[in-house]
C-alpha cells in the first residue's frame, strides 16, 4: 500500500505482540519499522488526508482531530502495556519508510538517551477540582438555601455564600499545594499543566491543579494509594487520577532543546 507514514512512537524492540485488532489512525493497523535496533511504530495514511494542505484543514475540524487523537492515544496506550514508548506529537508524518529511517538515524542518540531515562516509567495525571455551586458549569445549586425573609436576611445570606466560597477556594489552594508536594516527593519528576477547560473535559467543578507525575511502574501501586488516600476528608474538593499514561509529559524536552525551533 502506498501513502504516507504516520509515526506514533519510537521504542526498543519488544517481545509481546500488540493486540491483533488494534487499529491506528485512519483504521490502518500499526506496523513496526525497525532500524538500527530501534523501532518506529507507524501507520500508512492516505495523502488525501495527511498531505500538508488537507492536514491543515482537518486540524481545524474538532471531530476529525478527536478521532485522530483517540486513535493515536489508543496505539500509544497499547504500546505502554508491552514496552516503554516515546510518544511523538500527533501529526508526525513522513513520505515513506526511508524518510522515517532517516529521521531515526539522525536522532538515534537522543532517542536512546530518552528511552533510557524513561525505561519502566509511566505517567500519572492528577487533577484537583473545586466543586462549587457558583462555577459557571454547575449552575444548579445542589444545596437549597432557605428563602430570605427580609432584605437584611438576604444580604446576610449573600455575604455568607461569598465567604464560604472564598473559604473553599483558600482550602482548595492549600489542599492542592500540599497534595502536589506530597506527590512530587513520591515521583521521579513532575510537570504542572494548565488547568483544563471545564467544558472540553466535561468535568464538573473548576480545575485548580492539573499535574503529571513520572513514576516507575513498580512503584505505581504505592503512588495510586497515596492519591486515593487524599480523596476523603476534603469536602467541596475532588481529586481525579488518570493513567497509567505513556510518559508524554516527560518525553519532549531533551530533544526539543537540542534541535531548537
Amino acid at each position, binding site marked *: 500500500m502506498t501513502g504516507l507514514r504516520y*509515526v506514533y512512537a519510537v521504542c526498543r524492540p519488544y517481545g509481546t505482540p500488540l493486540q491483533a485488532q488494534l487499529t491506528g489512525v485512519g483504521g490502518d493497523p500499526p506496523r513496526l519499522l525497525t532500524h538500527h535496533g530501534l523501532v518506529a511504530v507507524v501507520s500508512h495514511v492516505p495523502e488525501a488526508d495527511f*498531505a*500538508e494542505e488537507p*492536514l*491543515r484543514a482537518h*486540524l*481545524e475540524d*474538532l*471531530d476529525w*482531530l*478527536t478521532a485522530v*487523537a*483517540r486513535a493515536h*492515544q489508543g496505539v*500509544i*496506550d497499547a504500546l505502554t502495556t508491552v514496552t516503554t514508548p*516515546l*510518544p*511523538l*506529537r*500527533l*501529526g*508526525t*508524518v*513522513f*513520505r515513506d519508510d526511508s*524518510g522515517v529511517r532517516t529521521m531515526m538515524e539522525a536522532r538515534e542518540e537522543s532517542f536512546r538517551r530518552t528511552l533510557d531515562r524513561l525505561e519502566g516509567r509511566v505517567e*500519572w495525571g492528577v487533577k484537583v477540582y473545586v466543586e462549587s455551586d457558583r462555577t*459557571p*458549569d454547575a449552575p444548579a445549586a445542589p444545596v437549597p438555601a432557605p428563602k430570605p425573609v427580609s*432584605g437584611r436576611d*438576604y444580604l446576610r445570606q449573600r455575604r455568607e455564600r461569598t465567604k464560604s466560597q472564598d473559604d473553599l477556594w483558600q482550602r482548595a489552594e492549600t489542599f492542592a499545594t500540599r497534595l502536589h508536594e506530597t506527590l512530587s516527593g513520591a515521583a521521579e519528576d513532575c510537570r504542572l*499543566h*494548565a488547568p*483544563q*477547560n471545564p*467544558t*472540553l*473535559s*466535561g*468535568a464538573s467543578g473548576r480545575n485548580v491543579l492539573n499535574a503529571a507525575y513520572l513514576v516507575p*511502574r513498580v512503584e*505505581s*501501586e504505592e503512588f*495510586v*494509594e497515596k492519591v486515593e*488516600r487524599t480523596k476523603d476528608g476534603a469536602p467541596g474538593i475532588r481529586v*481525579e*487520577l*488518570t*493513567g*497509567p499514561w505513556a510518559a*508524554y*509529559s516527560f*518525553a*519532549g524536552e531533551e*530533544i*526539543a532543546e537540542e*534541535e531548537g*525551533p
Partner: protein
Amino acid sequence: MTTPSRLPEPYGQGSGANLADILERVLDKGVVIAGDIRINLLDIELLTIKLRLVVASVDKAKEMGIDWWESDPALSSRARRDELARENAELRERLARLEELGLEPRRAQEEGP
C-alpha cells in the same frame, strides 16, 4: 485502606479519560519532530493550539456546549453582566413579593416612572 494485589488497573483511560486529557497529551506533549509533512501545529504555542481548537470553529464548539469563555468572569464581560442580571432579577422578584404584601417602599412608588 485497601491493598490491591497487583498493578493498578488503568484509571480513567478508555472510558473515563476525557477529551481534554487526551488532547493535551497528544497535541501539547510528546516528542516534537518535524516530519516531511510540515504542519502549523508543530510550531505554534500550546496556548494558540488550545485557542485555535476552540475558536477555529466557534459554532461547532457552541454546539458541543464549549462556551466556557463566555461564562468565565475573568474572560468575559458578558459573564459579569449575567451575574448582575441574575441578581437584578432576584431583587425584582423580592420587590414584587413585598408589593403583594402591601409593603412597597413609598419612595419607590413616588419616584417610579
